[in-house]
């Protein structure tokens, strides 16, 4: 009898706790001095480092970042449920119209490398954009195809079938890669196009950079694309890619920075539409051709989001300013490419144009 009562009390209290926990968690999230962001998974390790490091700079500000994917980040940003969004691709024209007055702030860079597994080949393979497109279209099916042989006269290529590996999940990496292929191969542009997930005619889909890497490493004669940072840490073989000037460039932090510097003068102002901004296939003799920005998204006037008050707006602007300047020192150790000065300058102008109810937030 008394046991029964005990169990009932236990049950009721468990029920009560389970009902109260979400309320408590909500109130924690809503506390003052916290900046909430959501979006792309690619910059998450960097933003998480910023969260820790910025506490040392400004102990009053608490940063929360949910890496739910670029799509989710854009959605939450547009619905004004977060203070800032993050996306690997710029807002499309329709997304930009829907959001109202959004500004794009490039916060870091990524490049996409072509990793392959051919046991017989030890020297880095050389590839051109059109050849890569033909491989992923299923038009070049053997490793000793004349088109690949022609680019690599010194390499003995095996007569094996090429297996291509792509990302199965929607991803900014896929966007950058297909954006590049659309630029260099009319055939690709016509049949596939660019997007976070596209209709791959051949090959194997694997989830995440890890999935692609695992599929390539375990199986000979595969080729796929992964983030530079991922290829560096997993020590995969990756190809040099021919750029616009005809040079074969090995992907690296430096060659990515070259690409961005070469294209920085073409960037629009922060509050304009960035939907057509890409830095793939850039000019410059030393530029690696497949790289892109990752963006933070803010409203030009931060009061557009009714949950942001003036104090918070200031805190957000200051944090972003810190992240795009002092915060860049944390990029390279994590395998990210730091922003070159030309982009930092573009960001500075954008940040100075941010307002709260018409008043500028950063004045100095």
């Amino acid at each position, binding site marked *: 009898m008394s046991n029964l009562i005990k169990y009932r009390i236990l049950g009721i209290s468990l029920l009560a706790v389970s009902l109260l926990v979400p309320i408590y968690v909500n109130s924690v999230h809503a506390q003052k001095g916290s900046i909430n962001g959501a979006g792309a998974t690619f910059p998450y390790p960097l933003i998480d480092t910023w969260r820790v490091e910025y506490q040392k700079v400004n102990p009053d500000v608490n940063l929360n970042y949910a890496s*739910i*994917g670029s799509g989710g980040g*854009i959605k939450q940003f547009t619905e004004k449920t977060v203070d800032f969004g993050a996306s690997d691709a710029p807002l499309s024209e329709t997304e930009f119209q829907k959001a109202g007055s959004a500004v794009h702030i490039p916060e870091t860079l990524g490049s996409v490398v072509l990793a392959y597994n051919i046991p017989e080949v030890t020297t880095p393979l050389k590839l051109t954009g059109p050849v890569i497109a033909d491989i992923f279209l299923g038009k070049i099916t053997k490793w000793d195809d004349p088109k690949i042989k022609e680019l690599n006269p010194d390499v003995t290529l095996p007569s094996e079938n090429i297996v291509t590996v792509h990302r199965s999940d929607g991803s900014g990496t896929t966007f950058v890669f297909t954006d590049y292929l659309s630029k260099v191969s009319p055939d690709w542009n016509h049949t596939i196009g660019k997007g976070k997930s596209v*209709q791959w005619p051949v*090959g194997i889909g694997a*989830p995440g950079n890890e999935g692609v890497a695992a599929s390539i490493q375990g199986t000979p004669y595969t080729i796929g694309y992964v983030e530079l940072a991922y290829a560096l840490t997993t020590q995969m073989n990756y190809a040099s890619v021919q750029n616009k000037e005809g040079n074969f460039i090995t992907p690296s932090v430096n060659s990515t920075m070259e690409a961005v510097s070469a294209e920085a003068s073409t960037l629009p102002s922060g509050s304009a539409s960035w939907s057509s901004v890409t830095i793939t296939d850039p000019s410059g003799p030393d530029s690696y051709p497949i790289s892109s920005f990752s963006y933070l998204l803010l409203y030009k006037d931060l009061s557009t989001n009714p949950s942001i008050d003036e104090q918070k707006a200031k805190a957000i602007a200051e944090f972003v300013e810190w992240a795009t300047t002092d915060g860049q020192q944390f990029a390279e150790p994590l395998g990210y490419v730091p922003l070159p000065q030309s982009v930092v300058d573009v960001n500075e102008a954008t940040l100075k144009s941010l307002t709260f109810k018409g008043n500028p937030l950063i004045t100095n």
Partner: protein
Amino acid sequence: MPPKDSKNTHAELVKKLDLQSRKSFIGDKFFKGLVIGASVYTLFMVALVFFALADGSLPIFLKEGINFVTGTDWNAVEGRESFGALPYIIGTLVSSTIAMAIAVPISVGIAIFITEMMKNKIGTVLSFIVELLAAVPSIIYGLWGLFVFRFWIRDYIEEPLHNTFGDFSLFAQAPFGLDVFTAGIILAIMIIPIITAVSREVIKAIPHSQKEAAYALGATRWEMVKTAILPSSRTGLMGATFLGLGRAIGETMLVTLVIGNAIGLAAIPTSLFSQSQTLSSIIANEFNEASNDLHLSALIGLGLVLFVITIFINVAAIYIISKVSKSYSNLRE
């Protein structure tokens, strides 16, 4: 204790009973309300899910019409949107069919082995181990499949099959290890414990008299299993099978890791070693980054298709079970 007056005890008992019955009367009412509430809640949730799915997928059905179910194109590129669910419906059915074809005989075999052949400690240990498999999260099976098991399947099953029977279209494609076949095998491993556990209970529940009758008529052990166990547990085994099928159809991350995730027309498997994709795995793959409204609606539409398939299978299961049990009871009469 001194013996009490019997009359007195009787009166006390009546009083006690009365009190208790009144108490339990209130309890009964409360319990009835609770049970009805729980059932209504469940029905309400199902209705809500259906409504949410139907509402969310309305835009894609308005645009594509029936083409959404029969189409094979899956293009989320802005300006070229076109969505058809057929490859993923086929992918789901094929991978689940392979899983069932492997899992059902093995599970029923294990169940018979444990209950009839090895009633001693070994059987107990074996059933414990099988049930332990059920506690492994499916993502672990998936990762194990991706990093370890697919190489075994490719090297020891797929390669020999491809080399020997490569002329048949079923084995024609060069094996890679990430395909519907691998997905089916790993799904089978995942659902074996469930089917085994239910089958074991079903077989255990068969009266001893039936088995002994079979033995008394001179049946061997196999004949006993064939004549006494399998016919009378058919309904229960069918139920166990459909329980496993339900898990196999809805499984997401495990399948995503090993099925090869082809898309569009390429996702319709042409051989056992083809890459494919299931309804739930493409939702898991693309939902996070689907910012385009139509793409999102198409993914919710896939959810609706999966929902309808699941309902259809369950209804079919109930129908088949009722048919089978009826024919069996007819047979007995």
